[in-house]
């Protein structure tokens, strides 16, 4: 395993699209980084440049101190897991996991031993003689991970590995990826568009939008101190309430809006527009003056009018320089 240093990475495609404008990041040895952002934000392109599958227009990537510029993918000593698993259909599960060792001409005994070990960690030891087309999506993704983990590369890249799985399986594998990553101490860069996945898995979250890093920080910090309205809106199960006043932008999370069904001096009067039940709470859309305000309530709001209070310690303030 190794640390990775990315300096001013840029990618402009031949058709003039600037996919990645300026990407700099240092990842510590053993760290789990999640790059997250909406589709088209440049996160996958960044990952592919690190893998060497896409040539960077400019910038440098240093892996364990070694400059990867001009180094072929196969010589980078990285492993990658793909969204669509990318398993070799003509080989068994064993053959798939053994492939990276085979092409390195490792001995038969060594291959058997390593594959058996990683299969045990991933709980796929009973599947080794099966062929990929007989496996379920979750099993396939485990095999793909086994193939990536078996040779302990310097860096582990994952491109939306859970996106093709159903919600339950996603939850299960999320924890498992973290467990295995910690166990092996694998430096990992993980790309997803799912903010919840990013929050729950990452040591550090890198939020991207329009080819630029918006913020790189721990999940707690991203949630509590978002660097700008984009980050604030992107995280949280409900989008943050955001409004402009003068040269400033204000934001407050729906769950932090305090409300009363009776009149309170100095609070903002708001009309209740609609309400949705979401399992453990109610989400209400209200209108205070011209602004729509979302809020959370533990029970259904009976009155048509509520009075809102925004506790100053919960309000985020940014300069309007966008």
């Amino acid at each position, binding site marked *: 395993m190794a640390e990775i240093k990315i300096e001013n990475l840029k990618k402009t495609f031949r058709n003039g699209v600037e996919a990645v404008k300026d990407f700099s990041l240092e990842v510590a040895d053993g760290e789990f980084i999640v790059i997250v952002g909406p589709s088209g934000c440049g996160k996958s392109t960044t990952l592919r440049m690190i893998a060497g599958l896409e040539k960077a227009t400019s910038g440098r990537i240093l892996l364990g101190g070694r400059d990867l510029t001009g180094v072929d993918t*196969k010589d980078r*000593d990285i492993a*990658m897991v793909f969204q669509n698993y990318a398993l*070799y259909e*003509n*080989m068994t599960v064993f053959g798939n996991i053994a*492939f990276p060792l085979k092409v390195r001409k490792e001995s038969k005994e060594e291959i058997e031993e390593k594959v058996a070990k990683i299969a045990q960690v991933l709980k796929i030891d009973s599947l080794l003689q099966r062929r990929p087309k007989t496996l379920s999506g979750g099993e396939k993704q485990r095999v793909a991970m086994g193939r990536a983990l078996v040779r302990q590369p310097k860096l582990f890249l994952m491109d939306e590995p859970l996106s093709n799985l159903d919600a339950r399986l996603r939850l299960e594998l999320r924890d498992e990826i973290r467990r295995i990553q910690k166990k092996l101490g694998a430096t990992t860069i993980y790309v997803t568009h799912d903010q919840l996945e990013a929050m729950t898995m990452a040591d550090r979250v890198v939020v991207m939008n329009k080819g630029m890093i918006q913020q790189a920080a721990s999940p707690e910090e991203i949630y509590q101190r978002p660097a700008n309205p984009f980050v604030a809106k992107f995280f949280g199960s409900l989008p943050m309430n955001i409004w402009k006043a003068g040269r400033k932008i204000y934001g407050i999370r729906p769950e932090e809006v305090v409300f009363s069904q009776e009149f309170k001096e100095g609070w903002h009067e708001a009309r209740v527009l609609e309400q949705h039940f979401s399992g453990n709470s109610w989400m209400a859309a209200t209108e205070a003056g011209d602004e729509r305000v979302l809020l959370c309530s533990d029970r259904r709001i009976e009155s048509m009018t509520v009075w809102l209070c925004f506790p100053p310690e919960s309000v985020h303030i940014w300069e309007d320089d966008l």
Partner: protein
Amino acid sequence: MLSKKRPVLFIAISLIGTGIFLLIPYVYVFIASFVKRGTGGFAGFDNYREVLSNEAFMTAMSNTARFIVVCVPLMLVLSLLISIYIYENPRLGKMLKTGFLVPMAIPVTSAVLMWRFLFDDKGIINGILESLGADTVNWMNTGWAFWILVLSYIWKNLGYSIILWLAALSSVNPSINEAAKTDGASSFQRLIHVTLPAAKNGAFVIIVLSVLSSFKVFREAYLVAGEYPDQSIYLVQHIFNNWFRNLEMDKIAAGSVISSVILIMLILLLQRFWEKGGEER
């Protein structure tokens, strides 16, 4: 009820065509191969015995077989290498692709005329040899004829095979190749272990089509060298042509059945091999 009939209706037209022009004649030929010429009585295996002991027929069969054995692998490897190059260099490849496709658009007769200009006793190549002071070669009436036929077959059909290979290659999920790259496989290892196995079904079609099209090279052989060409390019169709002229329908029938059975067996064998082979542990 209509839903069950519908698929049948869709294929009905081509099924009728195939039936009238292929299946029924084949059944007729099969029956005819057991019938005595002239008398119309049952001949048993007499026709087959006669055909199999016919030296010309055996020469024609072995020439055809030799032609397939030489041409098909050569064609497959050559077209595969070129299509891989085109696949990995799409910009330059586009021009190349057009270049390889041109021979397909040239009518056989024009192509043959070109071959004649080149390989005639007083043709261009002999002219060049002469001007260099070398001995001229009797291209079309010696063993060279076979290799000229191979060359003309490859030249004419290469583009088609390349297109088929390109289709097979582009059906391979690109991320499988990328996965192999990150797994540390060299481009040769990727080709052998990943790309070709994934393109396996396409390859089967290409082999079968190449075998079938190599059967059709008679046109070139006939047009270049006429009815009685050099022994090395005396093909199955030459002998059928001669039998046809003499109205020896019994022999034609028996010969057709033999060659079609060999061809069908060859394809079935290939298919068996294909289903079993190509899988790694």
